[in-house]
């Protein structure tokens, strides 16, 4: 049971959160202008990093905010060294 640091509510049990996968994948500015290949990338392709991964979590059972976390996907160690307030997809 990981302790996920909600930037607002503080660390809470993993079960209060919804996982959102890779952070920083932004919606194309003009989806109609991107190729099928790039659109597929946006829809289905996410980094699957082994090691330190920047990912999104939503504090579903708490303040409902989305935020990002850096976590080592081999150890579940979470790095508390950055500001989490930036919400990115």
């Amino acid at each position, binding site marked *: 049971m990981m302790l996920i640091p909600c930037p*607002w*509510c*503080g660390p*809470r*049990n993993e*079960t*209060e959160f919804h996982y959102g996968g890779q952070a920083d994948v932004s919606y194309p500015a003009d989806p109609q202008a991107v190729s099928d290949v790039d659109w597929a990338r946006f829809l289905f392709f996410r980094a699957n990093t082994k090691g330190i991964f920047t990912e999104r979590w939503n504090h579903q*059972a*708490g*303040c409902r905010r989305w935020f990002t976390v850096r976590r080592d996907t081999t150890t579940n160690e979470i790095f508390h060294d950055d500001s989490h307030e930036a919400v990115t997809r």
Partner: protein
Amino acid sequence: MAELHGESPLVTRAETLAGSSVPGVLHLSEVAFTAQVTLRVDPKSPAAERIGTAVGTMLPNQPGQVARTERLQILWMGPDEWLLIGPEGGAEQLQATLTEALGEEHGSVVDVSGHRTIVEVTGPKSRELLAKGCALDLHRRSFASDQCAQTLLARTGVVLLCRDVEQPSFWIFVRSSFARYLADWLADAAAEYRV
């Protein structure tokens, strides 16, 4: 006020809750029909300040903080979200006050009085009872009077409010459709104290 308010979500669980209470140990009951209003506004905006003035206390700006006035409790729910609790029948007026203070600024005021009901848990075993389904640290040093948290209790989301840390007393805000489940769960959790 049954005519005015009809039936509270736990009206058919009143006995369950009362029956689960053990004098001097634990007391469970519903606090029904409070006025509840969700407020969303940028805490740094002039509107937030106006609202503070209008309701008589600044909106709490720390996570889990609760502000009180004579009539109201204001629970921090998120960085730009509060739940205001007022006396029975006061939702209309509370909304009017907030809407007026909000003025033209972006924000929202929503009546949620029926959305959740409240179960009050008091007595020395309160914390232990809650700990059976709540993973938050409810120790007096961690969750003191006038602190609140949105979290999970058993298998439902709740807002937990510590009313008194010395003579332990909590309010559990639960969505009306989950209220019976929660009451049944609490009764089941409290069963050991009756034997």
